């Protein structure tokens, strides 16, 4: 059996490890066994895996099931699946298991509110437009640009009326 990493030397070592949340066994040569870690070059957490399984351990012990829901209706994943793999089954899982996932997500990122780019369909939604205009309005008032402020107010009024229809 050749080493799974370099495909060059004879494999001498069995290595059991967690890669991207997945338990895996690998057959490696001496040299690659020493250098093991190259496998994680692209992995999602760049070294977060260790922390992750630690967190999941804690999470398991305090696991609360959401009332009445055992699995995601879209993909069939359960919370047990998540705590085993560290991965959810589909986008909908984040809604279904929201209460259970949030403390975990906060512990990973230290924050739990997205800041950054958003898809166009959401950026152009009336709710987002209103939020954006409201902050523009506040800026215009602060800068005493009353003519501009009045324009924004009209735009806001139209948007809000349109929203109610």
């Amino acid at each position, binding site marked *: 059996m050749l080493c799974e990493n*370099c*495909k*060059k*030397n004879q494999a001498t070592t069995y290595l059991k490890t967690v*890669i*991207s*949340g997945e338990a895996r066994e690998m057959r490696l040569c001496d*040299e690659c066994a020493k*250098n*093991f*870690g*190259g*496998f*994680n*070059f*692209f*992995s*999602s*957490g*760049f*070294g*977060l895996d260790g922390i*992750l399984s630690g967190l999941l351990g804690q999470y398991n012990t305090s696991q609360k099931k959401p009332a009445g829901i055992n699995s995601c209706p*879209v*993909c*069939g*994943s359960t919370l047990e699946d998540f705590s085993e*793999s*560290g*991965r*959810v*089954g*589909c*986008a909908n899982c*984040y*809604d279904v298991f929201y209460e259970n*996932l949030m403390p*975990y*997500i906060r512990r*990973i*990122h*230290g*924050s*739990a*509110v*997205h*800041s*950054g*780019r*958003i*898809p*166009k*369909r*959401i950026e152009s939604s009336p709710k987002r437009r209103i939020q954006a205009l409201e902050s523009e309005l506040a800026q215009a008032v602060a800068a005493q640009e009353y003519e501009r402020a009045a324009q924004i107010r009209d735009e806001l009024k139209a948007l809000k009326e349109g929203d109610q229809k």
Partner: protein
Amino acid sequence: MSVAEFSGDGKDIVVSTRIRLARNLKNYPFATKLSAKQAREMIAAIYEALQKNPALKSVLSFIKLSDLDDLTIQSFVEQHLISPEFAKSTAERSLVLSNDRHISIMINEEDHIRLQVMGTGLCLNKCLDEAVKLDLLLDETLMLAFNEELGYLTHCPTNLGTGLRASVMLHLPMLTRCNEITKMIADAGKIGIAVRGIYGEGSVARSELYQISNQFTLGFSEQETVERLKGITDQIISQEQILRKAALAQARDEFEDRVYRSAATLQNARIMSASEAENLLSDLRLGISCGLINGIDYDSLNSMLYDIGPANIAVKNGSTLPPKERDKYRAEYLRNSLRSKLKE
């Protein structure tokens, strides 16, 4: 799109820059729950979205991974175009590559889309701009999984938010040799920056190369993420430069001896393993940056780092090469690339 666009400063220490975005399609389950049929459908939808831009379409290749032989796949791993996980996966996978290899898009890796833009030297903003352009193109046709609170939804919660992993590969021989790396890893970790040896665990990196990247993706905008990474990278670079100057001032003879010995071996050896070559090229890079060696630029040196990989050597010289033959071809390749070029 020209190569120069994806090139930046600081090439004496910064080997390369990579920007990666993770994206998923709202109407398909994540990788572990995705059927082969769904995967094929999804791949087709993503191809279509990317082909909407004719200029881009003309420079992209759309590759079904199952059409490639193992050696070619492995050579892509060595060139950092795909992840080892993607190479090993048995699922329906596709790879979209730009002709100049600066863009690579893995379809159906851990996330439906792993989009990567890679450049040489420190060029975080240029790579991010290009990645954003590609993201906008995908967003035009595809319904991307997104939630206002959690941002772009990903298979693993560690990538939620921007789905952005920004990273730079740094050559840090003096920090390594002075045993400063462990401390640096700890300090960087405190502010959400991960430092990893390229092919090694933590503090022992092969060829003294390290990957510096952001750990967190939720709560920081793309711009903030890139700026923080740039900030810490600049600090690491200046520490490495201080140590290089000190070493040259305090132990010039030993320093020069090591660099010139390595250069001589690279130009004369007949049998060379990949790891020996990586270590010698590390000395050579250090020698160039300190003005001891002339005649070769950093870009050529960077491509050499990829070319000496076992799979890359085999792809170029015959796929059935036994390891010892590969070592001979590697030595020959290095002699040809460096001899008659290097000047003291």
